[in-house]
């Protein structure tokens, strides 16, 4: 009978711990892979001029008129980081685990915009705007782990290349 209690006790304590450890390991793996992926993709679009001013400096009229480009991404915060974030909010202070996810989401959404711009043959993006969308109704407050939705928009155009 003692053994049964021990097994049950280990199960009750062990399962949540195992889930947290699993979420932590997978979360680290996913975010590292994403960051490596971003670093590589950033090289391919490094030549594109991006700014968030409305004036189109040095714009030249190419074969097609400027066009608005939009992109969006939703990232989930893994349960381990969500747990850390909750713990942190007891005492206040910087929540680094969330900051990192937000940062990745923004990089990803801008990357998608630049890739579209590149694919369409433009070489500059003006008036870049980045918004945060709350698609699940106050996700950060209500749930343990949040979804982070980021929307970006901008205007792709041609810029005179210095040569």
């Amino acid at each position, binding site marked *: 009978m003692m053994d049964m209690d021990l097994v049950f006790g280990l199960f009750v304590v062990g399962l949540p711990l195992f889930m947290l450890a699993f979420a932590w390991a997978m979360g680290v793996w996913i975010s590292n892979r994403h960051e490596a992926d971003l670093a590589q993709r950033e090289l391919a679009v490094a030549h594109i001029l991006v700014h968030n001013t409305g004036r189109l400096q040095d714009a030249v009229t190419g074969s097609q008129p400027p066009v608005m480009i939009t992109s969006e991404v939703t990232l989930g915060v893994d349960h381990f980081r969500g747990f850390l974030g909750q713990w942190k909010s007891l005492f206040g202070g910087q929540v680094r685990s969330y900051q990192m996810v937000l940062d990745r989401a923004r990089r990803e959404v801008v990357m998608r915009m630049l890739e579209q711009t590149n694919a369409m043959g433009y070489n500059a993006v003006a008036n870049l705007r980045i918004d945060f969308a709350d698609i699940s109704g106050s996700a950060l407050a*209500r749930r343990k782990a949040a979804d982070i939705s980021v929307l970006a928009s901008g205007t792709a155009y041609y810029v005179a290349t210095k040569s």
Partner: protein
Amino acid sequence: MIVVNTESIPGYHVTSVLGIVQGNVVRAKHVGRDLAASLKNIVGGELKGYTELLTESRRTAIERMLSQAQELQADAIVNVRFSTSAVTQGAAELYVYGTAVKIEPIVQASTVS
């Protein structure tokens, strides 16, 4: 139709402003997507279902804005902005608005002389 989120369009100048055009859409996620997302959320990473939902909503909102602009016989929409609001739990509104204008291509001075 030229749609940009800047105030001016290189190569064109605005001849008349027709007014604000807008489009909105309220979309909810279906339960299947919610379930898949909540599983993916354990480990983090991209929630593709929600990304698609946003892409579709944005497309619908832009289409509605475009049809309004077509009714006004506009040539372009400038200064387009997006905003989102959480209506209730599990539903979100995507709102897009811009200024419908008439435009004309700029005749380059260098080609005249």
